[in-house]
């Protein structure tokens, strides 16, 4: 702390303030004042289905120009079909076996992927927070599936917040990132997204993801897949959960399959 005091004293000297008189933020209430976001929040929460559908269209359009693949589906069943198709058709980049890693999230559990791969050489992993082997499983995986909390239509940005059971590397190490998102979690622009972030107390780390990893360092030639995923797929659930009478509540799904290794066959 001593070097902090000396450091801040230097700054106060540079600013022509009294060097040794520590200043507190209470003396400048304007400094950390932020605009009132209740209006923005009200707007987000009051969106009609039509407005949300419009946002999905904007997201798809803006995502296209960033090389994001958007799949709009009506139900979890359809969503599962999209994901299964991707797992079957894509080839692993760094090894020869198909491992898939998924966040511990009710919307991902609701896809019931383990039911679909019991006769194929596909290994599914879920990032339960107690599992000590998640790092190795993630490194081995060619597809990572997450369910980001906020999606920004204007910049086609996924906001992935680190939480227990939802580690950072799932959307980073695998070659393909699939994000399962709900129409009602879309916001129009970054101002709305930041208003939602402000609401969350004690934020851990989080990341904005706008498209696949890319580089243009060699002769300004755009190449996708520099260090992160080379493909990003958005699966947009356009039907609110309540409308899907035939599906079980997602919370129950999670409890059903309390194992790390869902299905293995090779």
């Amino acid at each position: 702390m001593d070097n902090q005091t000396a450091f801040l004293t230097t700054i106060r000297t540079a600013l022509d303030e009294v060097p040794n008189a520590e200043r507190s933020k209470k003396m400048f209430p304007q400094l950390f004042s932020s605009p009132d976001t209740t209006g923005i929040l009200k707007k987000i929460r009051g969106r009609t289905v039509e407005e949300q559908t419009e946002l999905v269209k904007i997201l798809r359009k803006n995502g296209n120009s960033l090389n994001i693949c958007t799949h709009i589906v009506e139900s979890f069943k359809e969503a599962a079909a999209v994901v299964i198709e991707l797992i079957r058709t894509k080839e692993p980049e760094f090894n020869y076996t198909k491992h898939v890693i998924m966040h511990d999230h009710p919307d991902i559990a609701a896809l019931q992927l383990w039911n679909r791969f019991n006769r194929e050489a596909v290994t599914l992993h879920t990032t339960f927070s107690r599992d000590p082997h998640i790092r190795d499983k993630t490194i081995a995986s060619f597809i990572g599936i997450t369910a980001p909390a906020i999606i920004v239509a204007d910049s086609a940005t996924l906001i992935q917040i680190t939480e227990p059971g939802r580690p950072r590397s799932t959307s980073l190490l695998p070659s393909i990132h699939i994000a399962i998102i709900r129409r009602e979690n879309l916001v129009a622009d970054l101002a709305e997204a930041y208003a939602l972030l402000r609401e969350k107390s004690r934020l851990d780390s989080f990341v904005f993801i706008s498209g696949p990893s890319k580089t243009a360092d060699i002769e300004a030639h755009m190449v996708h897949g520099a260090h992160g995923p080379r493909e990003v797929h958005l699966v947009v659930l356009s039907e609110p959960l309540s409308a899907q009478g035939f599906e079980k509540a997602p919370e129950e799904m999670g409890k059903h399959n309390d194992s790390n290794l869902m299905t293995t066959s090779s």
Partner: protein
Amino acid sequence: MTSQYRVDAQKGIGSPRLQASLHSLQDRFGKGAMALWAGMEDKDMRKRVKKSRMKNFEHLDILLAELAQNVRARGGNVYFAKTAQDAIGYTLEVARKNGVKRVVKGKSMLSMEIAIDPALEDAGIEVVETDLGEYIIQLAGDKPSHIIAPCIHMNRRQIGELFAEKLGVDYTDDPPALTLAARKALREKLLSADMGLTGCNLACAETGHISLVSNEGNIRMATTMPQVHVALMGMERIVATLEEHRETVQLLTRAAALQKLSTYVSFLGGPSSANDPDGPKEFHLVIIDNGRSKILADPEFREVLACIRCGACLNICPVYGRIGGHAYNSPYCGPIGAVITPLLDGINKHADLCKGETLCGACKDICPVQIDLPRMLAALRHKLAYGSDRWNTRQHNPAEAYAFTLWRLLVTRSFLYRTFLKIGRFFQRPFVHKNKMIRKMAGIGSGWTDGRDLPPIAKRTFTELWSQKYNKDLAAQPAVTEEEI
């Protein structure tokens, strides 16, 4: 003696490859950013962000204390480093305590400013740059020449040969194949490193996060996979609130690469929590002064701290666009480098930089936070012309000062001036070439004729011609002033 600046500048001008890539870079990003500003709906955004940057400097002590407190509350460590040496010492100590063998770096110009790489290497630690451009530069043992496109001076053939030699892959000049080769090689390094070392684009005091932008994902890798993350932050790279962060980061990515947002914007503010399977177990934020408080103290130059290092001024500067980045001999090149390099590292030492720029004002026009770089370039020249105690600057060229004193005497006395011209006309005769131009002058005069021919002193001055032609009218009418013409 020819300065290194001139030698490197001439080298840059003489390289057709560099000229071609600088031209296309400026054509795309320079013009693109100007078009973006012109078409922006929210015309006040740049002004607003600049204002908030300047306001925050007035309360910098409070903001930094708040940031430190919030990072510590999350279990992170914060160290305040007055000098480059302090920052290096602290980082080495962290590395030693954790038995670090390999460090992966996310692009950080500050790390180059404080020269931490050689210090780590001397301690027996392998240092790997992970930004593709920086990695290529590192493999080649070269220096970066642009803030966001470090290897703009190399072409795909050179990079292909470099990879074939250093990475043992088959030669190819296909950018996707080369990127893939680097992806594989760097993935191994990133997954096995013990420490990630990054900079900080923008810290947010109220939430206690640093944020980093990247398109490749190397920053995310370097801050997620190793056990230790050390972030080096210039003390001026801070905003108070999330709202300020949003506007500032948008200006950054727009100005840098015409993107609404970069592919990744990472917010990090501590070690991973107990439940987290990945993320660093230790997080260290090193807040660095290294000469910045001196800039802060000088009202003439404080504005330059508002820079968010987008590199846009490089994409429009007519001087950078010809000579390239190497001539600046600094981690910071282009117009912004021509101002901060002398301020951080000595005005006399980098005297050529401010003199080399043209003061055309393009950098001010393109700057997302409208920093008046031309004004500060002129101020630096003033310091060089007259010396400055505050900046410990001596008069750069006393001979030049004498010459200008004499020149002033001469041009303010018309008889002397005319006599001087007559003498000049007489002595220039042997030098005037067949094309009626002076092609070569000797000594210090050669600077005027090396790159072009110089017209000789005219037989008559403009005033003489004028009075000869309009003499009779002049007698009859009052003098015509320039405005009326």
